[in-house]
């Protein structure tokens, strides 16, 4: 296994310390706004906004999108999660800047070519886009934020996402090791 092209650990924050800070950010979010952090919701809002801009009629009559778009409804982009994710982009960029990690690069397992990696990444993203609708959130919005408020849904999301990951990891091993 080639460990060399994984970014080296020493350059990152100690994971427990990072987890502690992440927990504090989540706690602050809950304390100030009464809600948790999230990510997939913003992707959903963006999808609906794009769809509504391209084909408003079809979007508004779609039984799923129609709940979020249409006359009298707020612009889907004016949602808390869209603004939060805009912040994530800024915050991630600042972190990359201060830690000197800004670089246009494709990161992949040692046996995977960049183009294949792009395809797999897109497929993975699509699966998350679908799965997060059924679960009403992804690793951040359903699992992490849900666990912080001890919701059953949070623990189900965490167990099913990571449990499945371990169950199918064997079949995807050539992608990563």
């Amino acid at each position, binding site marked *: 296994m080639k460990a060399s092209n994984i970014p080296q650990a020493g350059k990152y924050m100690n994971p427990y310390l990072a987890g502690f800070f992440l927990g504090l950010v989540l706690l602050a979010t809950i304390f100030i706004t009464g809600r948790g952090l999230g990510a997939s919701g913003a992707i959903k809002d963006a999808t609906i906004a794009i769809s509504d801009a391209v084909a408003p009629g079809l979007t508004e009559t779609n039984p799923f999108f129609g709940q979020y778009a249409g006359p009298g409804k707020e612009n889907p982009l004016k949602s808390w999660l869209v603004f939060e994710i805009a*912040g994530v982009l800024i915050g991630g960029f600042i972190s990359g800047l201060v830690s000197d990690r800004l670089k246009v690069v494709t990161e992949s397992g040692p046996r995977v070519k960049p183009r294949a990696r792009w395809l797999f*990444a897109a497929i993975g993203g699509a699966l998350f886009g679908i799965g997060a609708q059924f679960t009403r959130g992804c690793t951040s919005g359903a699992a992490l934020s849900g666990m912080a408020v001890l919701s059953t849904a949070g623990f189900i999301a965490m167990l099913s996402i990571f449990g499945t990951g371990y169950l199918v990891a064997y079949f995807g091993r050539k992608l990563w090791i």
Partner: protein
Amino acid sequence: MGPFVPDLISDQLNLVVAIILGIAFGFVLEQAGFSSSRRLAGVFYGYDFTVLRVFFTAAITAMSGVLILGHYGLLDIDAIYVNPTWLVPAIVGGVIMGIGFIIGGYCPGTSVCAAAIGKVDAMFFVGGGLVGVFTFGELFPFYGNFYTSTALGPIKVFDSLGISQGIFAFLLIVVAVVAFAITTLIERRVDEKSAPSLQFKPLKHLASGTFAVALGVIFIFMPDHKTSLTEKVSDPSYAAAHPVDKMDADELAFRIVDHEPNIRIIDIRSPKEFAALALPNSYNVQRADLFGKDWVSTFSQRHLRKVVVGNDETQERTAYYLLHELGYENIAILRGGIGTFKRTILDSTTFVPTGSRWDDDVREFREGARPAILKMIADAKNKPVKTVIKRKIQGGC
């Protein structure tokens, strides 16, 4: 008392707050190394357990904070968003996402963070996410019914397991600490030379783990705010040390008939009992709702005399003390509970002389008040019920 939305922070300002919190979120994710798909995927192959460490530490930190703030009444636990459970769809969605994680190497939050520092694969992941949501929406009619099936509402995990909140929190911390230890051993076995955990100082981590478990033990003995306050005021010595203001049924009847504006009747009986007999212009507030923010605007007005009405004085006292402990003033309880009010004012029984020289006046007043109040009660039944609009708790993806 948190949360500050929507009272102190408007919906508009909340969007600014969202950006600031998002910046912090993205910064920490990137510093943790979540902008690297290989590190993320490592959790499934044993060469890098960063995800597990960051994820569980974050969940436990936030959970601990919520429990502690809730215990001291600094955070209204009932006003924060608890994501509801749709059991089977949630599991199916999780399975789909788990497969997506192995194939894609990111989850949505980390992909945005990675895209921000120039990871091209992450940009494809985000693009794929848009396609995925779109596909889900287009095919929605095929599984629309399934999507809303097995709805269990915003249930809590400790209730689902039938254990107390504290014990669950303790167990979660223990599981996490044990998982941290085991995965560190696995990681070092998989990659002896460059396992990330080789950087750790054992003593520091041992101390942190011990501290976390100790915190878990405290949680076992730390009830939530409601339970601890209720226990406090239910203690006989508390009642002995805290006298209560009482209002006689006659005085209350007089104020009702008089349409006294500076009085609020807070009926703490069950909705069923309230529906059977409610005093004119009274509010039905369940004991659990005394803690929330729904009634703050009523309770916090000092010039309003809050008269607690219950089945008996014991029930009234508990509510009285809770209101007192929550910082509200100008409260009284109805002497003898609603039973006394019903017997002396509403029922046309013969007057029981007390030997007081005012007996005649009292009897005369009651005879006049009886039909007046009964008429007010009858009129109220034809009017729509006054209810406080429950605050909408926002959240979810």
